[in-house]
């Protein structure tokens, strides 16, 4: 059976829930359209520490979306760090970019939210719609959820102060951009 298109892992699902929250009186009527846009014309340009940027194309026009996400407070980051270290130790040999699903449950149990609730998301969009979040911001959240599904580690990176450990370039290769043309031939 194929996993769901948005929120295939608990990590992505946490983000999907921020827009499909069951606590609302009725589902947001913009959601079907937002999923279509996420599926077809949304490109996440940046998904990094504390913010997401995306371009959503509608009828040939590009809407630029930027969503700022509050980082976890220091003490939460420290707590999360401990839980992550413990979970990783229990799941050695995990594939690069993945996190064990038990960790998601752990974090939730310790009241550490993985995703940012809608009211705490600072979303900006170049469109002129009056409703916020607009359909483009919602599409961006869906697209972000897919990226998190592909690489659960992103869920933690979005909320944490960057550390050296998150950079995992392949040591077998050196990027051309890191090479100095002057010293290339060595003499």
């Amino acid at each position: 059976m194929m996993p769901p298109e948005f929120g295939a892992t608990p990590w992505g699902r946490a983000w999907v829930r921020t827009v499909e929250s069951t606590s609302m009186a009725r589902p947001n009527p913009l959601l079907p359209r937002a999923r279509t846009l996420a599926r077809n014309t949304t490109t996440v340009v940046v998904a990094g520490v504390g913010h997401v940027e995306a371009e959503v194309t509608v009828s040939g026009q590009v809407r630029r979306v930027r969503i700022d996400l509050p980082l976890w407070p220091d003490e939460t980051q420290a707590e999360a760090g401990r839980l992550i270290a413990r979970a990783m130790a229990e799941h050695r040999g995990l594939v690069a970019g993945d996190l064990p699903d038990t960790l998601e449950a752990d974090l939730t149990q310790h009241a550490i939210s993985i995703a940012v609730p809608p009211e705490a998301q600072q979303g900006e969009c170049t469109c002129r719609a009056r409703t916020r979040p607009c359909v483009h911001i919602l599409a961006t959240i869906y697209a972000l959820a897919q990226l998190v599904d592909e690489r659960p580690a992103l869920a933690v990176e979005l909320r944490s102060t960057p550390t050296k450990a998150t950079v995992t370039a392949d040591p077998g290769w050196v990027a051309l951009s890191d090479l100095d043309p002057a010293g290339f031939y060595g003499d």
Partner: protein
Amino acid sequence: MTEKPSRLQATFVPAEDAIAWWGVAELDDAIREQGLPAGRPGVCRLAVARGDEVRPANVPVRFADLDAARHGLLTLDPRAEVGASVRAWRDAARLLDGDNPESGDEAFGALGLRMPPAAHAVLDADGTAIAAAPTLLAQFRQAVATRVLLRGAAVTAELRPYQAHGVAWLNARPGLGHGGILADEMGLGKTLQAICMLATRQSEKPHLVVCPTSLIGNWRRELARFTPTTPVIIYRGASRALPATYPPGTVVITSYPVLRKDEPLAATAWDVVVLDEAQQIKNPDALASRAAAQLSATVRIAMTGTPVENRLDELWSILNVTSPGLLGTRGRFRQRFVASIEQRRSATAAAALTRMVTPHLLRRTKADVAADLPPKLYSTIVCTMADEQARLYREAVDRAFTAGLGAGIERSGRVLALLTALKQICNHPAQYLREDTAAPGLSGKFDRATEMLTEVVEQDDRVLVFTQYRAMGELLSKHLGTVLGVGPVPFLHGGLATERRDQLVHAFQEDDDAPPVLLLSLRAAGFGLNLTRASHVLHYDRWWNPAVEEQATDRAHRIGQLRTLNVHTLVTGGTIEDHIAQMHENKRGVAEIVSGDTQAALARMSDDDLHAVLDLGQGALA
């Protein structure tokens, strides 16, 4: 010095198993001036410094064979005016110029730090990065060590450069703590590379080769051909047994059906396990896949010619056997990659997966290694008889000799009838018994041909299949039409009107929607047909005159054609087909056999001699 280097450069290129000389305009003169080996000309993807950037380029080079290059570097004049990259590789050659290629980790570490980027300018697949110096030095040491081991192991084969790289790649797997998939396109010599790996492993534990039943004989034959001293045990049949101890280097060959449910195989500690035709373990729930994953082994190597990297579920299943844990659990893999890549073509997920899989998969296509290949690449595939075939074969021989073959004209007729019967049995019992449907599992050649043609079709290549029998052509056409999934497979034979024949040829040559497989009767295909779009030719049965076969092969090959043509010939091991094939190959035996009139020659033999030729040899059931 960022425009063009003024001095000769050197870079080790693992894929070519060679050191590339490059960087100066008058390359040949510069190489000769330094007394370095000229090697073969080529073009290599390398990083170069131009202006204020380092960028990828197609660089004209000379590839010097590794041994010759090392020797040349060792004798290089210390005052030579060469680039720092050449001096770096000279130092690397010096470090290996001892008895022990394992020595000097520290010295190599220091060398890695001072090598200029030009010395390790080998680009990755997308041309955005070059190999890190320590990585390339490690590959260099692996390549040299592999050559030393191959010489010591008395492997009687000349490896092409890409094959030598393949062996070094395979040999590096155990040290990396995981297996891998050798996924070269069909016809590039995967079996030979695997055999070289087995022969160069120094281990007390035995090796295991698992292959389809029809290929057991081929493995046995190839092992005997390339490493005659390797002890080989065929493990199949009801009375199979494994010995209590193994001489060093022993290779046990078995089949997937045996692997599925065999306790002794599961209880043995193996060194290398080779899983040939690894499509057999593409379904993770299949018994064979589970049994393969549970084998205790130092390293597991899967071999397949189909491009598995494009079928994610199959890729997961095979890597789950060779490199457990690499892709995570099946459920997680589907969540993270299959849904993303197959449903919505996510570029980020595809790139991430490629990064994870690339170090575990070696695939070269004919196009990749075209410079190393001759215009025609011949291979003979020895197929193992099915039990039913062997029974019919023995019965036919016994009946003929019991009844007596007579003398003179009568003898010729009876020998001919017997030979025809035996050849039909080798093709498929259904042909011999005049049935109108040929089922799988009853003929080694038939099963093997189906597997090979499936692979060719999956590679988007085109193939001609020759048989000398109309009945066999019809049986193949019917069977392939149902299993290949490319629509009805046409059969061009003498019974068709000229117009229809022309249509078939035209469709094969010009029509992109036409089936990529064309069956031909050897007789009808002798003249004038131009079928150069085929990149593979399969001779399903032997015409006992090599010249006729060659004429058919040349339907697909024209002088000046740039693409290599694979010519595969199927032979049923231990049978009359096999005996004749060996006589042809050895260019000895009865004169008429060599010149072509095999049947007359066989009719003239004494009963005893003829019986010896027709009797089922020990290779028949491997």
